[in-house]
């Protein structure tokens, strides 16, 4: 699983780099626009450790925001599955709000909360929260009639059992959604850092952009890709373990 993801990333990354060099040499662009391989290598040696810590910083915020949004989506999804007005209100609100680009709201968050940790965390959580919520609401409000009928007929059904049945029946769907939203969490953190934060790899990319230093950006992208792959592999492994445990207990 790990090697597959890393291979995929390396293939995509090096195809991208090759295209850049092709453009550079075909169009005879200067090193200022697209740096030479040697310059990229030297920049890598200079910034690798600093950027690695920056990526770790970003990744920790992404994981925290991701967990936060999973918890929030679970709670709201449980309420949203209800057939009473609260449930339908939450469902409609979720569908409408998710259509609004969170990045457009991000400046307001930075103005109100400043450029520190809380803003990055909030934007990260918001970016991966809505896709999670919509999936969770969909899964938790869809009855598994052939299992639930018995509990309803014998008056044993309660909300915990209902959620357990629906989550168990859709565990592979839930795992896929969580892994998918992991990428969104990392994207959300980097975007928020890029917009206004004062730390993280997104912040470093913004500085590199101001310096027009493509070599630094390429090094940052390399580290982001490796760390994202590792995080997604961890999530996939966790999902498989949960499925295995549920089926063996």
């Amino acid at each position: 699983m790990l090697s597959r993801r890393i291979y995929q990333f390396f293939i995509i990354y090096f195809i991208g780099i090759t295209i850049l060099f092709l453009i550079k040499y075909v169009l005879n662009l200067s090193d200022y626009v697209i740096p030479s391989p040697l310059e990229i290598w030297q920049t890598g040696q200079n910034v690798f450790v600093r950027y690695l810590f920056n990526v770790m910083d970003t990744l920790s915020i992404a994981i925290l925001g991701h967990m936060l949004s999973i918890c929030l989506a679970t709670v709201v999804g449980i309420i949203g599955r209800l057939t009473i007005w609260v449930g339908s209100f939450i469902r409609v609100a979720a569908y409408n709000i998710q259509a609004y680009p969170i990045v457009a709201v991000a400046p307001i968050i930075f103005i109100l909360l400043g450029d520190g940790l809380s803003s990055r965390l909030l934007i990260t959580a918001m970016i991966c929260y809505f896709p999670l919520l919509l999936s969770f609401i969909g899964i938790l409000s869809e009855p598994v009639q052939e299992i639930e009928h018995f509990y309803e007929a014998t008056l044993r059904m309660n909300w915990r059992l209902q959620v357990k049945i629906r989550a168990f029946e859709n565990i592979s769907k839930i795992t896929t959604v969580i892994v998918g939203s992991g990428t969104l969490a990392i994207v959300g953190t980097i975007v928020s850092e890029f917009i206004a934060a004062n730390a993280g790899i997104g912040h470093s990319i913004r500085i590199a952009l101001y310096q027009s230093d493509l070599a630094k950006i390429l090094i940052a992208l390399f580290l982001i890709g490796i760390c994202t792959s590792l995080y997604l592999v961890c999530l996939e492994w966790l999902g498989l373990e949960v499925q295995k445990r549920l089926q063996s207990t």
Partner: protein
Amino acid sequence: MSKNMLLECKDISFKYPGSNTEVFKDMGYRISGPGFHALFGPSGVGKTTLAKMMTGDLKNFGGEISKTDIGRVLYTYNLERIPGWTTVREHLAATTPESHQHKIDDLVAAFGMQPYITSRFSKLSLGQQNRTNLARYLLQEFDLLIMDESLANVDEVTKENIILKMKTAFSDRCFLYISHNVAEVAKFCKQILVLRGRHKTPQTLSLLGQDYSNGKDLDKKELEQTMLEIVNAF
């Protein structure tokens, strides 16, 4: 349980929302006394719809369904499953009321469930799944159990053993057996309601079955006669 149990459907009329076709029009039917009663008819004629009216799951219909000495009505069908996180034994233990726990072993043996009692539901064959599902309903409190194809995919010998066991162990309960099998309906049920389809008059016919049970002789000629009557009633 009372021998006076009665479920009476009077002038039942029903159309599915958004449809102009009437599934039932002024239909009447009586189920009286404990034992096996059958609901028989071609697919799509309204057997499940009628069953859901009896359980109260379907409400927007015309007419009246009245019950005397019938408290709890349960409905079970052949596609039901038990949750995937539990084995058959654990599920039966967890869902059977305290007062009926002592019946579990007897029923497990009679239904031939012993070989797979520690298995998970998904590992069972369709027939085993249906037996398991029926067994858990029989362990509940009920007066009338509506069995919608509940013994589908069960082999004939096991099916007969199960029905005969049910007739002795639950002789004071009422069962409404929905099936497409003419022979088993004619053989085991005492009263058979044949739903004939919406364009036929009368829409239903009530016939007497052989009500075969342990210790009772079965007259094959009469059984054949009943089967013919059912087939001709279509």
